């Protein structure tokens, strides 16, 4: 099995994408709702990533 080296951002982005797919599929009842929930959850992941990234940046001074 090849070894992959991802940056923090790439790994977090991949995690957000795959997790959003699963959350979208299992959470809602219609396909449209599933798609919207998956997209919204992906958006929230990205938002949280940037917010926490900046928080850590300023926290370090």
């Amino acid at each position: 099995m090849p070894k992959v080296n991802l940056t923090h951002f790439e790994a977090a982005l991949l995690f957000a994408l795959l997790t959003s797919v699963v959350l979208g599929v299992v959470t809602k009842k219609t396909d449209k709702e599933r798609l919207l929930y998956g997209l919204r959850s992906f958006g929230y992941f990205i938002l949280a990533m940037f917010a926490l990234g900046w928080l850590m940046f300023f926290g370090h001074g």
Partner: protein
Amino acid sequence: MSDQSVKKQPAAPVKVWLPIVLFAWILPGAGHFYLRRSGRALLLASAITLTFLFGIMMRGAMFQPMSGDLLTTIIYTGGFISDVMSGILYLLTVWLGYSQPEVAGHVHDYGTKFLVAAGLMNVLAMVDVFEIVSGRKS
């Protein structure tokens, strides 16, 4: 809330849902395939398998149950259970001799979390299968 809106669903018999939920555990996405939800099955199988494979490719460590203080027990036993919940992916990996020690570094750390996340995603898929079999969801 009125009495009509809280109408309780009769519970499905264990012998009906248990084999399908176990099938969903062993093969991620298989429960949905069996219940003829092919599109959702494909998405779940792909997402869970990819998450697990990326965890392996990032050389994540598999948890072993460990006792000690409360936090150690929760993290290691919980991590082990989550790893096992990936079903055949976990079993094959262990049978093929994958044994990665915990190594410092963000890539290994992400790998370990990806392996745990794959198992937790499969738990969500199993719960979804249970809800479909029980008639609570289509």
